[in-house]
């Protein structure tokens, strides 16, 4: 071989090596981001390491009509000042994208079932579960509905333009960290993406149902058992709006003669005293893949205190929505001033407007309404081709819709969706179930699939001056139904708002087998008859996801309301309120005293009188006899009680359900407590696996010895502290541990008003007093920045954990320039 040839081969070989090196390091290696791109200090993750605080400057923004100022305070909250609404929503989009672009992108993809596009085939089943449920198609239908409303349309378009103006400034090196980790680029924002975020909210807050698990339980144990242990109302329920305050007529509504005039005979057939689901056994639910059953969440709290009970004479509002916590945080704090609007509060990143907040005249807050607006129907199909299903005595045609899913790597999946007049059939025969609550060949009827304009409500609340304005504003909120508390400078109100189908009592609690229009949703509870109260004489209103009304209300709302454990505590605190101020309102949200402990502990301790116990159990009983029911992180008593009660609860039902919490719904804690209190010799306390006949106290004593052992084991010989058995954490959205907070220690419990539970809990505490100018405190677990390389990513976590509030800076005029403003960003309009 000649020298030139040798050299040429050598050059070619080295060029090939270089090409391979660049290629290898430029692509993802499994879950590892492309090393060349990622570790480059010029393009990669290092560029997300924030090294200096942002400074004020001017930005020329394409698509903006008039210039807008964004004054950022020291906590990173933008205060938007615009002459018009277009500029205000544009700036909101720009500011939110500047801090939270990746969160907005990934959550909108989740809503539309587009995660596999960027995360690969592992997410295909997730995408299918969203798409087959109709979320993507209903987002489009919602958008069309919203575009009919000029305010919503302006907001959606301006918000998208603002997000896109921010994206246009980005080079690859500027992309948020997670785009680099997952190796993809942001795409232009559209109004549809905003609606997709709303679909996520609806999915989280209105789809929760245990229809299938309840169905299995009913089948296994029969109607008598079901009626006794799965009552439609929780034992000891303390409704949000009992009849003595629900009869208060709101002044804005003169079209009806008030809620008390509602009569069953003037409306569709709906009133029965029996539980429909118990008397109508559902179809077989065997063969459904086991999924963890929905657990009762720790819900949310809100309250309004009338001026008669406050020190200043002005109403005070508190709100604390408890949600699955994440970093970047669920909420983004913002002040919006534009046109006649000047509001402050928290927004959902990606949605224009403010969800929970206040303006100069009014304040509002929400808890989830918990109505049953998700029904599952077992359908009979004519044959395996599924072209027709039986309904109303005849075969109706199934609609087939082709759906294309593009996955990362270029692969495309064509999926066929099945639709009935009720809604989608998410799982076909022979397919693995996509959802615990929707078996194969079952149709879903879900209120979120009906076109509506919830975003319009978030926008109109901003300019509400009184309760009449507010009721008008929230009228377009159909799903998820919410308990809105409201105050203005002199009034308090609470409204249960949502679109709720008229059903028989208990209808849709279990899987429906009736295939006729009697069980279709055809009428809805009229807005004017939705439960509400305005300036009740007692001087306070509150909600905590419990039953909305007492049994005098003629409509069925559902049976999935949370037990009145937090609600009961809140009621007691409200009743005792006198001379309240914003600090005492804040303290209500931090209350760590558990009503479950207060009600259950005496029953447990009652079994321990004059009985022989191990020395450790004696010590535990001694401690618990002096415990006040407060859940402090470093104390042993909350852990002892929690372990004891849960061991007892498991012992009661474990034998009957053979330990199967996956397939069956177990009786609730309040039902178990009520049984212990009223009938300690009940057969249900007998462990059917043993020859002897146990009574409740036998189980209580056994449970205590086990709890004590468990506590000593965890505590290495001494009783373990609550924070050891109940660690808290706030995970990153991708569940990458180093991007989350790690293990945290804090007071509170799931049944406490300070509802800390694992990575679920208070997501935005807010207290507002409306005097001449609003005075407000707030705080959420996270920080304004979505960048893990910024100190503002988790800056609020310590205050949140210790319950220390931030005083919220509400600027009345654009020319105000207090010291707490760190810098100003000016978006220059193109007009």
């Amino acid at each position, binding site marked *: 071989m000649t020298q030139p040839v040798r050299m040429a081969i050598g050059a070619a070989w080295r060029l090939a090596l270089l090409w391979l*090196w660049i290629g290898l390091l430029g692509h993802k290696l499994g879950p590892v981001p492309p090393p060349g791109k990622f570790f480059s200090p010029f393009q990669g993750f290092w560029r997300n390491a924030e090294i200096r605080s942002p400074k004020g400057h001017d930005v020329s923004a394409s698509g903006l009509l008039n210039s807008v100022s964004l004054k950022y305070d020291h906590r990173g909250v933008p205060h938007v000042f615009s002459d018009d609404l277009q500029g205000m929503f544009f700036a909101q989009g720009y500011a939110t994208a500047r801090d939270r672009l990746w969160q907005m992108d990934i959550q909108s993809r989740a809503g539309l079932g587009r995660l596999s596009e960027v995360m690969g085939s592992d997410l295909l089943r997730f995408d299918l579960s969203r798409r087959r449920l109709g979320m993507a198609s209903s987002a489009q239908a919602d958008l069309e509905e919203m575009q009919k409303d000029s305010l919503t349309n302006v907001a959606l378009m301006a918000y998208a333009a603002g997000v896109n103006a921010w994206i246009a400034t980005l080079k690859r090196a500027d992309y948020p960290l997670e785009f680099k980790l997952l190796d993809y680029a942001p795409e232009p924002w559209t109004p549809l993406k905003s609606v997709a975020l709303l679909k996520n909210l609806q999915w989280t807050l209105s789809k929760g149902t245990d229809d299938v698990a309840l169905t299995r339980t009913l089948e296994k144990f029969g109607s008598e058992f079901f009626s006794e242990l799965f009552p439609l109302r929780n034992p000891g329920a303390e409704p949000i709006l009992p009849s003595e305050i629900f009869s208060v007529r709101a002044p804005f509504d003169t079209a009806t003669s008030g809620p008390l005039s509602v009569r069953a005979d003037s409306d569709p057939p709906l009133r029965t005293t029996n539980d429909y689901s118990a008397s109508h056994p559902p179809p077989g639910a065997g063969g459904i893949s086991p999924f963890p059953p929905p657990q009762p969440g720790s819900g949310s709290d809100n309250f309004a205190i009338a001026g008669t009970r406050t020190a200043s004479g002005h109403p005070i509002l508190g709100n604390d929505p408890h949600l699955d916590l994440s970093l970047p945080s669920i909420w983004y704090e913002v002040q919006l001033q534009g046109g006649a609007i000047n509001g402050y509060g928290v927004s959902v990143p990606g949605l224009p407007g403010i969800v929970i907040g206040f303006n100069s005249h009014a304040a509002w807050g929400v808890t989830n309404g918990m109505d049953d607006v998700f029904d599952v129907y077992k359908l009979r199909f004519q044959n395996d081709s599924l072209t027709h299903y039986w309904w109303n005595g005849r075969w109706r045609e199934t609609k087939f819709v082709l759906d294309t899913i593009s996955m990362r790597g270029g692969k495309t999946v064509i999926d066929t969706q099945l639709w009935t007049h009720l809604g989608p059939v998410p799982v076909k025969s022979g397919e693995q179930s996509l959802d615990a609550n929707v078996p194969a060949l079952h149709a879903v009827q879900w209120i979120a699939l009906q076109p509506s304009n919830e975003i319009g409500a978030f926008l109109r609340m901003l300019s509400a001056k009184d309760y009449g304005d507010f009721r008008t504003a929230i009228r377009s909120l159909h799903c998820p139904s919410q308990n809105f508390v409201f105050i203005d400078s002199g009034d308090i109100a609470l409204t249960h708002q949502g679109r709720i189908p008229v059903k028989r009592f208990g209808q849709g609690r279990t899987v429906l087998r009736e295939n006729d229009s009697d069980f279709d949703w055809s009428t809805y509870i009229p807005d004017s008859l939705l439960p509400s109260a305005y300036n009740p004489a007692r001087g306070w209103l509150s909600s905590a996801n419990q039953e909305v009304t007492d049994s005098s209300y003629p409509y069925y709302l559902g049976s999935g309301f949370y037990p009145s454990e937090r609600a009961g505590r809140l009621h007691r605190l409200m009743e005792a309120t006198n001379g309240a101020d914003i600090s005492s309102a804040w303290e209500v949200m931090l209350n760590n005293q558990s009503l479950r402990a207060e009600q259950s502990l005496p029953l447990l301790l009652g079994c321990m009188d004059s009985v022989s116990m191990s020395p450790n159990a004696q010590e535990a009983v001694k401690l618990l006899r002096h415990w006040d029911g407060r859940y402090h992180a470093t104390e042993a008593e909350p852990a002892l009680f929690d372990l004891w009660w849960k061991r007892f609860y498991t012992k009661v039902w474990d034998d009957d359900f053979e330990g199967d919490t996956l397939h069956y719904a177990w009786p609730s804690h309040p039902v178990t407590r009520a049984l212990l209190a009223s009938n300690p010799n009940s057969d249900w306390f007998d462990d059917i696996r043993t020859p002897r006949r146990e009574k409740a106290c036998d189980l209580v004593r056994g449970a205590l010895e086990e709890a004590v052992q468990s506590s000593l084991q965890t505590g290495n010989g001494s009783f373990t502290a609550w924070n050891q058995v109940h660690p808290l954490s706030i995970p990153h959205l991708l569940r990458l541990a180093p991007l989350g907070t790690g293990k945290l220690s804090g007071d509170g419990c799931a049944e406490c008003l300070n509802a800390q539970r694992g990575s679920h809990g208070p997501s935005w505490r807010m207290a507002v007093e409306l005097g001449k100018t609003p005075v407000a405190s707030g705080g959420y677990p996270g920080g304004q920045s979505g960048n893990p390389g910024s100190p503002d990513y988790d800056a609020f976590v310590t205050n949140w954990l210790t319950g220390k509030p931030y005083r919220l800076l509400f600027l009345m005029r654009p020319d105000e320039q207090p010291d707490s403003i760190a810098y100003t960003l000016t978006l220059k309009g193109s007009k």
Partner: protein
Amino acid sequence: MILFLLAFIASLLGGFASPWWWPAIVGLALGLWKPEPRSVLFSATSCGAALAWGGVAAFYQIGNHGLLGGRIAELFSLPSGWWLVLISTALGGVTAGIGAEAGRYLRLAYNAK
């Protein structure tokens, strides 16, 4: 020394406006241009690029007080963000070195014609 300086300056200045594999271009160009023994060429170009990459990475690690470096290091099961500075340094250096080697052979092949 001139190779080292040129590799450092070119990698640094071009890095912000170029794709991540810019050091390979720098190495390739230096290898084509300057006839040097393989060891001198490779070590000078890779050290120059490595210093640029490592220096900028260290700047962010220090300026950010190790906040992001610490998080990402944990993600890769490394004890500290300074290990990531080392990784960035090595990647920049090796990329430039492989580029220089390819450039050197291209020059040799051209000269051997």
